[in-house]
C-alpha cells in the first residue's frame, strides 16, 4: 500500500540525496518544511508513513531511506541507502580500485577490533600488504580524509570508526562478509562496533555504548542482562536528544533550498539584499 507521491515527498527525497544522512530532528523539521512549501497536510506524528510512501517508490530502484542509531550519541538517523549491490563496489564511482582495497582493509581492522576502531598507524601499516597498486603514506592520508568527508568513516583523535551512514548502508554486506567476526548488540540486535562486552568468559555479550546508557540508567548495581554477572564497565551518561530544531535544519538543508519556514523569508531577503549590495557596486 502506498499513497501517491507529491512534491513534498520529492523535495524530501532530493534533500536526502544531497545530504546522504540526516538526524531525526532534522528529518522532522525537513518533513514539516516540505509539506508547508508544497501546501500539503502536515501531521507531526506521520513521519514514518511519509517515508514509507517514498520508500515504496524507491524500492524498484533498489534504494531505501533506512533508519539507524549512531554509536556515538545514540540518536536515530535516516540514511538514503543503495541496496543494488551488496558489496562496497557501489563506492566504485568515486574511488579507484586500490583505494577501495584500502577501505576494505580498514573495515577488516575495525570489524576485527574489540573497540570498533582502527588507528591511522595500523591503517598505514596495512598498505604493505596491498595487492593492487600500493598507496603512499600521503595518498593514504588524503584518502582517509576523503572517506571522512564523504561520510564513510569518522575520525577522532587519530582513530577511525565506521560512520553511522556506513553502518546503516553496509550492515547487510558486513553480516555476510564478516559472518563469524561481527558483533551484535544484545539489547537492540543491530550490528555493533563500539560497544561494551560482558567480562564473563562464558557469556561475552555485547551492548552498544548508548544502549548501555539507556538500559542501565538509574540502576545502582548494573548486572549483565544475559548472565546476571556484575557489569564492570563505566556506564555512560544517557544522552537526551537535542530539542533545538533550528540547529539541525540549518546544517542539513542544501544549496538552493532554504532553512525552516520561519527563517526562510528572512534568509531570502538577506540573500537578495546581499546580491543587490554586490550589484550596486557596479552601477
Amino acid at each position, binding site marked *: 500500500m502506498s499513497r501517491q507521491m507529491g512534491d513534498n515527498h520529492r523535495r524530501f527525497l*532530493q534533500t536526502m*540525496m544531497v545530504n546522504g544522512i540526516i538526524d531525526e530532528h532534522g528529518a522532522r523539521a525537513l518533513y514539516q518544511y516540505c509539506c508547508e512549501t508544497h501546501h500539503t497536510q502536515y501531521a507531526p506524528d506521520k513521519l514514518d508513513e511519509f517515508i514509507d510512501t517514498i520508500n515504496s517508490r*524507491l524500492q524498484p530502484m533498489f534504494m531505501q531511506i533506512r533508519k539507524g542509531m549512531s554509536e556515538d550519541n545514540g540518536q536515530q538517523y535516516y540514511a538514503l541507502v543503495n541496496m543494488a549491490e551488496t558489496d562496497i563496489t557501489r563506492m566504485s564511482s568515486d574511488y579507484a580500485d586500490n583505494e577501495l582495497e584500502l577501505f576494505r582493509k580498514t573495515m577488516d581492522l575495525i570489524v576485527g577490533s574489540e573497540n570498533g576502531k582502527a588507528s591511522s598507524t595500523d591503517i598505514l601499516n596495512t598498505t604493505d600488504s596491498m595487492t593492487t597498486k600500493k598507496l603512499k603514506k600521503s595518498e593514504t592520508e588524503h584518502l582517509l580524509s576523503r572517506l571522512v568527508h564523504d561520510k564513510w568513516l569518522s575520525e577522532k583523535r587519530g582513530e577511525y570508526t565506521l560512520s553511522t551512514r556506513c553502518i546503516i548502508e553496509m550492515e547487510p554486506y558486513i553480516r555476510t562478509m564478516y559472518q563469524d567476526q561481527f558483533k551484535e548488540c544484545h539489547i537492540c540486535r543491530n550490528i555493533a562496533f563500539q560497544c561494551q562486552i560482558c567480562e564473563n568468559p562464558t557469556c561475552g555479550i555485547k551492548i552498544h555504548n548508548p544502549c548501555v546508557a539507556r538500559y542501565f540508567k538509574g540502576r545502582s548495581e548494573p548486572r549483565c542482562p544475559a548472565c546476571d554477572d556484575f557489569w564492570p564497565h563505566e556506564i555512560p551518561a544517557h544522552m537526551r536528544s537535542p530539542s533545538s530544531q533550528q540547529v539541525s535544519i540549518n546544517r542539513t538543508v542544501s544549496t538552493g533550498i532554504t532553512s525552516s519556514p520561519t527563517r*526562510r523569508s528572512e534568509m531570502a531577503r538577506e*540573500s*537578495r539584499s546581499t546580491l543587490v549590495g554586490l550589484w550596486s*557596486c557596479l552601477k
Partner: protein
Amino acid sequence: MTQRKRPSIFMENDFTQRQSGNLVAQDEDDDATFTQPSTSQVQRGLEKLTPAQVDQKTAEVVQYFLVKDQKKIPVRRADLVKHVVKDYRNIYPEILKRAARTFDQVFGLKLVEIDPKNKMYILVNNLETPERASPINPKMGLLFVILSVIFMKGGVVRENLIWNTLKKLRVDPGEKHEEFGDVRKMVTDEFVRQRYLEYVRIPHTEPIEHEFRWGQRADAEVSKAKILEFMGELHDQDPKTWIQQYREAHSTPTSSQASTSSSQR
C-alpha cells in the same frame, strides 16, 4: 541576440501511459555504435523480455544518471548504452522513456537533452522553487552574477568584462579567494564542465582572448525572466524597459520557470 540551440525537453509531464507513437528522435544519428531502433523493433524486443527484466534495466539506468548527475556531469547516450543498457539496446527508447517517467514522478527531476547532436542528457530540478532568483550558496550567487551580465549584454561577452566585474566585487581572478579559491579555475573550468557557462576562444586574438556565453545547463535551469525581475528591483525599473531582454526572457518556453512545454524532439 546570438542564435543558440535551445535544449529540448525529452519527456512531457504526462503521467498517463502513452500509446505507441514513435518516441524515437527523427534526427540524424551520429553515434557510430548505436542505431536508434524503430518502434516495431522496440515492441518485438519487449515481447521477448519479462517485466522484471525491463524494470531492473530501468533501475540501473536511473542509478547511473543519479550518480553522474551528482557530479553535474552530463550523460552521453553512447556511454549509457555501452556501460548500462548493453544487450537491451533494442529497447533503448522504452527504457529511457521509463527512466524519464521515474525521474519525474519519484524524484521531481526532469530529463533534458542538452545536445541533440551529441545526445547528451542532464537532470534538472522540476520542483517549483520560490527563491530560485536569489541563490543562497555563494558559488551559485557568483554564477548568477556572471549569467546576469552575459544576459543583459546580449548573450555573449568578452572575458575581460567578466573579470572586471568580479574584481569590482572583490573577487579577483588573479588572487586566491577566501571562499572560492582559484576563481579563474572555478569560472573557466568547473562552471564550464557543469555546462553552466561556455568559454570559447575568440579567433585571431593576440594575446588569446575568450568569450563567455550561457551553457546548456544554465539554459535549462535558470530563468531569464527571474534575472530580469531581479535587475528591475536593483535598478528600480520595470523589467519591460529592457525591451530586447524582456522579449527574449518571455518568448522561449524553457526560459521561464516551471515550464510545462511539451515539445517532443
